């Protein structure tokens, strides 16, 4: 009707993305926390944890909150940005200087060189798909020490 249509994110991958982030955070714990142990602490079944991580079960906010607490992270880190729901577009072209740095770091090891190229391209895509920071969100402004 009168509503202007605007580009929408594809939400089909939303819970899958949340699930993957939960899984990553769980496996990052030291010592690692099993799906069974996480389930026990949440008072839900292990299958539920499996399904939440797989994106098949849609956990309510209160449960996500508890998961974040147990996994020693923050709820906000489970929530993907709109751009993360899209598959990354075309591969990036690395500049000669970057390629030189990769060669140096790989010290002649072809496999390392390939891995680094892949990882850097991925990080560059991540940066390209992020919206620019609003001024009030920025924390990276240089601190003027003498003014304090």
């Amino acid at each position, binding site marked *: 009707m009168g509503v202007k249509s605007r580009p929408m994110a594809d939400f089909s991958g939303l819970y899958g993305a949340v699930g993957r982030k939960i899984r*990553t955070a769980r496996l*990052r*714990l*030291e010592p690692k926390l099993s799906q069974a142990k996480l389930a026990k602490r949440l008072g839900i079944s292990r299958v539920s944890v499996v399904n939440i991580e797989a994106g098949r079960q849609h956990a309510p906010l209160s449960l996500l909150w508890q998961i974040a607490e147990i996994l*020693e*992270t*923050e709820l*906000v*880190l489970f929530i993907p940005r709109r751009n993360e729901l899209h598959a990354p577009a075309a591969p990036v072209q690395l*500049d000669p*200087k*970057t390629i030189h*740095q*990769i060669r*140096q*770091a*790989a*010290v002649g*090891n072809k*496999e*390392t060189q390939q*891995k*680094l190229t*892949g*990882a*850097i391209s*991925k*990080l*560059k895509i*991540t*940066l*390209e798909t*992020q919206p*620019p*920071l609003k001024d009030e*969100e*920025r*924390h*990276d402004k240089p*601190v003027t*020490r003498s003014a304090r």
Partner: protein
Amino acid sequence: MTSLSLDQHAEEVLRDTETYKVPVPIEVVAQRLGLKTEAAALGDKVSGMLVVENDRGAIGYNVSHARVRQRFTVAHEIAHFKLHLKKNRRSQLFIDPFVIFRRDDNSATGNDKQEVEANRFGAALLMPATLLQKEIKKHGLDLDDEDALSLLAKRFRVSTAAMTYRLSALGLLR
């Protein structure tokens, strides 16, 4: 930068990002500085990297490293972001080779100097001096006791090697 001002600067970063607590949630620090963090397959020669494009940065850390090592890597890359960015460059890249903890960081030329500084700043982010002293006092820890050192390392989610190194840098170890 002197160690003292590095320590102060690190504490300021933690306070500005409201992450001044034990253990320091280092990924939250990164996120609040506008830095993305991602685990990445980097092979066995590289710990981590920082990619910066137009003031925005993303950190990649080695997916196969232990969690405590990954935390150290993220802190190290944050240090590069805060201390070593060159002005007016659109695109910058730091690649950090995997090095075993060395007690002597006497190599101090060019890039090495930056690396040493990034290690010190990273350690100050993960183990702020004031919070360390508080924890030691709170638990009545005897730093001559190896168990106390590993307990402290666990509390701060760092390796015992990193904790030992930090405590001696602060002059808290005999």
